């Protein structure tokens, strides 16, 4: 009997760890610690649409080599990232300049990509297909050809949208993908159970101390937002925290002036920032051309952060400890490095002790949602 129980539990854990019980059925209440997902009026959730989106998400035919799909960089067994890659790899192993953010809880972002150049999940899905270092397509026609002719897709699009042939456009394709992504919400971490459900022993004493640093001396909470009834761990704003841009400080004036001179479309920005590392470091400035946005990147969520190493928009910080040290130094990775002129006003040296840094790192482990936790993590080791 015990053996059978063990097998069942092990199977459940295994299945959950590879994301099989991660999906939230439409209409159910949000996970513990998260607010309700906002669904766009023109893209309601249905089980069939979600299943279609999943299929599109995995389809490698939507690339020039037939080897790259969304799930290459947002893999179910890697917390929907491509950890441990620093920057993502597209067709023929071509690399871009940015670290793949997790799709988990992306439904709570108000803009997509590190620089917020996309206003929605639907719009975001358009871009990687036609980026030279991602799927490499010239345009979306190859995708449309497939979804309009492949029998499984023909049936699915008819069922979901009541459309067929030329009626199927990238709008339907991206709506399905977005609907699938909106089911990838996960809370119910040890932190959620401690903070919102009153389970006083859910966090270890070290983690509780770490939360104290997070909310006070570390100043983390001002950007990685926690509120009284829910926590998305992002303020949906953009900040220059001195990663990446520090390396090109002397080139910023020339790079910036280039952008100030010529207005670029969203697609042009998409290609430019993934194609040239120096341009990538301009951050949101490349999108808005506001001096205030120089070197600024979007605050990511911290949920499941223990699973998504390496860190920052360029994957340059390999461990959480390195991240904390960067913040503690006041926006430079090596203490004594020159601080860049455009550093966000929220970043300054923190004066944390080694113990406080360790506590903070330990607290990060408490943000993992159980359905994505690795078996080793569940056992308490790391």
């Amino acid at each position: 009997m015990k053996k059978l129980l063990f097998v069942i539990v092990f199977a459940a854990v295994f299945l959950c760890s590879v994301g099989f019980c991660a999906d939230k059925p439409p209409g159910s209440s949000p996970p513990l610690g998260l607010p309700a997902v906002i669904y766009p009026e023109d893209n309601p959730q249905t089980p069939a649409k979600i299943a279609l989106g999943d299929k599109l998400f995995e389809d490698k035919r939507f690339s020039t080599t037939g080897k790259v799909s969304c799930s290459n960089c947002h893999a179910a067994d890697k917390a929907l990232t491509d950890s441990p890659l620093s920057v993502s790899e597209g067709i023929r192993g071509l690399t871009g300049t940015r670290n793949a953010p997790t799709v988990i809880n992306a439904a709570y972002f108000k803009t997509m990509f590190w620089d917020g150049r996309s206003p929605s999940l639907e719009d975001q899905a358009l871009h990687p297909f036609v980026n030279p270092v991602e799927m490499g397509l010239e345009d979306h026609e190859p995708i449309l050809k497939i979804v309009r002719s492949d029998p499984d897709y023909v049936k699915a699009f008819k069922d979901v949208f009541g459309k067929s042939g030329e009626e199927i456009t990238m709008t339907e394709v991206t709506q399905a993908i977005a609907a699938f992504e909106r089911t990838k919400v996960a809370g119910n971490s040890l932190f959620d159970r401690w903070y919102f459900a009153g389970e006083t022993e859910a966090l270890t004493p070290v983690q509780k101390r770490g939360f104290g640093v997070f909310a006070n001396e570390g100043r983390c909470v001002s950007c990685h937002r926690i509120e009284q009834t829910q926590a998305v761990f992002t303020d949906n704003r953009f900040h220059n925290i001195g990663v990446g841009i520090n390396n090109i400080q002397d080139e910023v004036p020339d790079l910036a002036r280039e952008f100030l001179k010529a207005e670029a479309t969203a697609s042009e920005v998409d290609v430019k920032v993934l194609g040239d590392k120096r341009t990538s470091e301009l951050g949101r400035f490349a999108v808005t051309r506001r001096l205030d946005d120089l070197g600024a990147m979007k605050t990511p969520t911290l949920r499941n952060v223990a699973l998504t190493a390496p860190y920052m928009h360029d994957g340059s910080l390999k461990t959480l400890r390195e991240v904390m040290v960067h913040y503690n130094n006041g926006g430079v990775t090596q203490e004594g490095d020159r601080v860049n002129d455009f550093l966000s006003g929220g970043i300054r040296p923190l004066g944390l002790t080694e113990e406080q840094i360790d506590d903070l790192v330990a607290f990060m482990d408490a943000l993992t949602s159980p359905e994505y936790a690795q078996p080793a993590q569940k056992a308490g080791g790391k």
Partner: protein
Amino acid sequence: MSKKALGVTIGAFAVAVVAIGVATYADEFTDKDVERWQGEFMSVVEKGRALWTSPDLGTNGVACAQCHPNGANTHPETYPKFQQQLGKVIALRDMINWCLQNPLEGKALKADDPDMVAIEAYLAHERRGVPLDPGKH
């Protein structure tokens, strides 16, 4: 002394007590009492003012009054409130402590520290007359 003398003394004392205006019951206090207690309060307000303008509250020489002349823009009448940047409902003293630790790069004060009470008294005094509006952003 004789019984009569004692009675007279007590009576005289009682008359004197009433005449001077010393309250002898809990529900009795006089204008002079109020004036005196107000003075006690203002002495702490003044201490709060001194702390408010002091460069020594933190470690970098910055004084509260540099950004908040006469305590303006501290809005004591709106606390407790949901302080959106901290993600929780806090009391005025928590915000004071945030400022002590951040712009002033100093240490937090305990809630019952006389200095904290003095600062709160000063802020409330500079904001007197403004109706309570807790939670107002």
